[in-house]
């Protein structure tokens, strides 16, 4: 809401500055975002008097003027406007003045004649769009005054951010009320008496189908109007608050809307068929063309204004093209109504059609002011258009305003605010805001003012008292934190587990990324992710963000691309975030016992790319490979105390080759591998991209089940033997290791892979180191050799390998 300080002063004699008012309003909950001067660009223009005006000897249309601008001497100014004449008061741009279009006025010579300034038109000053020669000011205007002062322009505009509850403050009147109360000033509202007993009575018959949707409808008739531009003062003021001036009829409706918050609509009475108004919802599929020329398809929920035959307005949102005021209009029916906020909002949102009117109707209208506003508008309109206001008001009010009576306990309000409230302060505050207060012991009866639809409950009044008391004056106190014993021992939150994993990742040397939860369908398609189970955004911002991710890979790959574009040579990224899947219509998902719409799984993603080390020296230069990625994954499982991990070749996978399934204690917990180079290409990857994704919810479950027990340290020394298995591609190293561990030989304390040697492609020599130990004595060489032999035989027998 743009508030003009001089407009405000028409309602309350506030003499302070704009900044001080802004600060006060801000601390009352009406945040002033900035203070602007819409006429800053013409603040240097002064009023001058054309003392002499003659023709330029060298030109048919130029005039040589001598202008008095109270500068001590007359200024020679060459002017090309046909309407310039001696004796006129005119706006003058002196030498050195910067015009709104950026041009700086310089001393110039026009066809031999010196010109020290410029006489301006309204358009050159940004005050109007037409260009009918120079602007001529009223004869009494004082020479030498700044133009903005001479015209009394609104030069101080406060941009107030009005919260949705404060419908009343979407008007100069409402903000004047707050100002008057805040500074202890009187508020003068000039409610004109019912005007217009001039012509014969004109009563337009009204009909309201549903009083819940239209609580009040009123209208009056003006006859004999002439549509023309509004008087300058009104145009300049509307311009100052960001409203384009249109005509003396439409401008008045906007002026009243800004002044007292009541939206009005002017119909061309001669186009209202049947001379009657019906307020009624639209038929499903009914079509209607609004003032902006758009044809719109309505549905049964849209409230409409109709004449005897057709729709003539979309109630509270926008009027119709069919009854628009045009230059030919002579008679006006002016509407002032109060509609149900939810109904207006629904229509406005569905049609994507928000207007100053609908914005106010959605938030609530002062019903008791509707007819007063109508009368004031009629008086202004008649004055501006030369018409007469006809006798009589058409008015139907199926739901008259009844103030809500609220029970208010000052002591309770103090308990909520944490201060001791003085009862007289409470009474003064509430009464000052317009409430009727009846003090009865500790429980008062307070009734709501008609302009405050937001005050209906005790909490609302507590807020008002607190706001005026000053939330910033409440002394801070730290609360004692009590917790419910029933919650003691609840399972730790996912947050603490995720935090541990994140710190593990950063500590290990990975860089944490955060990617958007949404990607484009095409990103998921690119990786061949299934289309089934995806969750699409109904109203996405763009096609790049129209579906929730079902894997972390797309986001990590986008981060890869961003970094490669910046010249990164090696990357180790990770992310912990949720992926989303549609559970299908028959699955009811729960979060802590309450329904949740989507399956959300917390994942850990890791991406490795390019050079293994950030700095070459003294490391050997090499690129990250599978062993790096697997080492990180194994490190994580070790960190989380997770036993029994298995890695299995996936075979066919949409985006990984090779791809490996990771399982832990028999549960699938993730996958990893190399992104297929053909898919990685569009991310500008020239080297292998290694990617792992693990299900953190699964890992957390396994981790929570793991119990850590102390194992006593061995007393007797170990004996080590190496064994080399000559195998082909199969058996896999993991199979051999698994077999050795599964033997569960009492003396075999440990097995590890020592070396892999490939004498020729397809042949592998795998050397394992076997560690033997007895808990109670030192082992003899002979018994160890016997054990090793047993192991060798078992390998030969099981896998057919040679040792």
């Amino acid at each position, binding site marked *: 809401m743009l508030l003009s300080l001089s407009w405000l002063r028409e309602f309350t004699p506030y003499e302070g500055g704009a900044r001080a008012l802004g600060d006060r309003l801000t601390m009352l909950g009406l945040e002033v975002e900035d203070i602007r001067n819409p006429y800053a660009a013409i603040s240097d223009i002064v009023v001058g008097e054309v003392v002499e005006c003659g023709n330029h000897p060298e030109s048919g249309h130029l005039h040589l003027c001598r202008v008095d601008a109270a500068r001590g001497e007359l200024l020679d100014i060459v002017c090309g406007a046909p309407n310039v004449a001696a004796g006129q008061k005119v706006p003058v741009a002196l030498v050195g003045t910067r015009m709104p279009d950026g041009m700086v006025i310089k001393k110039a010579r026009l066809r031999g004649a010196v010109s020290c300034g410029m006489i301006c038109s309204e358009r050159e000053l940004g005050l109007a769009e037409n260009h009918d020669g120079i602007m001529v000011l009223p004869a009494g205007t004082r020479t030498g005054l700044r133009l903005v002062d001479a015209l009394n322009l609104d030069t101080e505009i406060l941009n107030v951010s009005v919260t949705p509850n404060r419908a009343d403050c979407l008007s100069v009147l409402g903000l004047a009320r707050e100002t008057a109360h805040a500074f202890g000033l009187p508020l003068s509202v000039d409610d004109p008496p019912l005007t217009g007993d001039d012509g014969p009575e004109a009563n337009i018959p009204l009909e309201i189908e549903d009083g819940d949707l239209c609580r009040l409808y009123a209208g009056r008739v003006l006859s004999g109007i002439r549509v023309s531009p509004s008087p300058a003062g009104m145009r300049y003021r509307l311009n100052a608050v960001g409203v384009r001036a249109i005509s003396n009829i439409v401008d008045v409706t906007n002026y009243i809307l800004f002044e007292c918050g009541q939206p009005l609509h002017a119909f061309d009475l001669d186009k209202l068929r049947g001379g009657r108004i019906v307020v009624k919802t639209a038929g499903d599929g009914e079509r209607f063309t609004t003032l902006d020329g758009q044809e719109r398809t309505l549905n049964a929920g849209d409230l409409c204004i109709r004449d005897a035959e057709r729709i003539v307005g979309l109630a509270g949102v926008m009027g119709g093209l069919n009854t628009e005021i045009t230059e030919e209009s002579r008679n006006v029916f002016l509407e002032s109504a109060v509609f149900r906020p939810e109904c207006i909002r629904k229509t406005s949102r569905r049609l994507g059609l928000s207007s100053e009117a609908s914005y106010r109707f959605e938030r609530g209208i002062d019903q008791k002011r509707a007819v007063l506003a109508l009368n004031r508008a009629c008086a202004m309109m008649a004055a501006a258009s030369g018409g007469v206001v006809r006798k009589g008001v058409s008015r139907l009010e199926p739901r008259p305003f009844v103030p809500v009576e609220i029970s208010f306990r000052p002591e309770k309000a103090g308990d909520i605010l944490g201060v001791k409230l003085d009862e007289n302060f409470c009474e003064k505050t509430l009464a000052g805001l317009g409430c009727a207060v009846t003090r009865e012991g500790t429980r008062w009866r307070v009734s709501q003012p008609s302009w405050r639809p937001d005050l209906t409950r005790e909490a609302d009044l507590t807020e008002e008292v607190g706001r005026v008391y000053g939330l910033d004056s*409440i002394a801070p106190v730290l609360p004692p934190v009590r917790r419910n014993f029933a919650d003691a021992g609840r399972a730790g939150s996912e947050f603490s587990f995720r935090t541990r994993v994140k710190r593990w990742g950063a500590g290990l040397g990975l860089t944490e990324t955060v990617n958007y939860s949404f990607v484009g369908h095409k990103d998921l398609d690119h990786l061949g992710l299934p289309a089934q189970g995806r969750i699409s955004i109904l109203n996405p911002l763009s096609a790049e963000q129209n579906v929730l991710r079902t894997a972390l890979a797309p986001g990590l790959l986008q981060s890869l691309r961003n970094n490669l574009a910046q010249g990164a040579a090696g990357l180790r990224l990770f992310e912990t975030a949720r992926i989303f899947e549609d559970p299908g219509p028959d699955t009811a998902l729960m979060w802590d016992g309450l329904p949740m719409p989507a399956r959300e799984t917390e994942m850990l993603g890791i991406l490795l790319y390019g050079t293994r080390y950030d700095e070459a020296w003294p490391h050997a230069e090499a690129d990250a490979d599978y062993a790096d990625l697997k080492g990180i994954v194994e490190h994580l499982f070790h960190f989380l105390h997770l036993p029994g991990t298995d890695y299995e070749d996936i075979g066919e996978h949409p985006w990984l080759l090779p791809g490996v399934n990771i399982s832990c204690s028999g549960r699938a917990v993730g996958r990893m591998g190399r992104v297929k180079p053909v898919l990685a290409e569009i991310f500008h990857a020239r080297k292998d991209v290694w990617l792992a994704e693990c299900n953190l919810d699964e890992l957390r479950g396994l981790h929570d089940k793991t119990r850590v027990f102390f194992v006593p340290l061995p007393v007797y020394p170990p004996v080590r033997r190496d064994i080399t298995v000559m195998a082909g591609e199969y058996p896999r190293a993991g199979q051999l290791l698994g077999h050795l561990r599964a033997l569960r030989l009492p003396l075999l304390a440990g097995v590890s892979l020592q070396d892999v040697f490939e004498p020729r492609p397809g042949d592998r020599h795998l050397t394992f180191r076997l560690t033997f130990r007895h808990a109670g004595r030192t082992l003899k060489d002979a018994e160890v050799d016997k054990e090793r032999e047993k192991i060798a035989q078992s390998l030969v027998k099981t896998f057919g390998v040679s040792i």
Partner: protein
Amino acid sequence: MDIVATLENLVREMEERLARADTLEELEVLRADVLGRKGRLARIISRLPGLPPEDRPVAGQAANRIKERCAALFGERRSALLASREAEALAGFDPTLPGRAPWRGSLHPVTLIADEICEIFTAMGFEVVSGPEVENDHYNFEALNMPPEHPARDMQDTLYITEKVLMRTHTSPVQVRTMATRAAPLAVIAPGKVYRRDSDLTHTPMFHQIEGLMVDNGITMAHLRGTLTALVRAVFGSRTRVRFRPSFFPFTEPSAEVDISCCLCGGKGHHRGEPCRVCKETGWVEILGCGMVDPAVFSAVNYPDNVSGFAFGLGVERVAMLKYGIGDLRMFFENDVRFLRQFA
């Protein structure tokens, strides 16, 4: 020749040869030749038993003396050689060469700030809770006193999945979920991702919030002020000033927005002679929204009306931007490692 003279000769010869031995290897050859098990000294000593008994004590003493003398000479030379070898080895030592750096990792600034704030609250006794990111309209709006067609829904442009399912626009639905399943007293915080249909210089469609909720008998606005003032001082320093400005949220009443004195200009409104770009000359920057839990929210979760509570919601990126002086919100989600590695 007299055996003692032979021994004395051995010492002289040893001295000469030691002086010529320039390496530890030559020294070892010399040691074996003279002092070794089958060395010359040993051979001389082996002749001792053959001497006449009256000569033996003198010869024996001489042999021992010579043996010690030789060992000492040898030891001196060895130490000298060792010292010079070490000195040679260290001649090329350059302490300014870079270390063999292990991988360096980093946490995202959002994580760093969220962790810091959560730690502050858990130290006060708050518990961390969470909820789904895809929400039902009920938890995101209706139970928070925002029925359909409430104009306050305009404050949060929403990304919808279906008419009744949406991306949560704030972490406040976690308040509802927590109260719906647990009784008072409660003191919880809920960090997490939230989503808005908004994308420009100062808005991204996803960002992070931390929700706080405390419910008990006798919780007041003064407690809210105390708690948030403590938070601000912990995060931004004890000299930061805090301002509570009345505002409006459908789920709290009274509601307030909290401003802190500008981190860049210290609240003066100008910085190094220029108008402050962070606070736009006001000296204050908005940091979070808060208020006393609205009775309508309590009744939506069937809480008794003798409890009261406060709630607040804070934008994590906002805090990170102010604390680290980051000017562009979008950098948080571009994941440029040159950005990410600056913070930890």
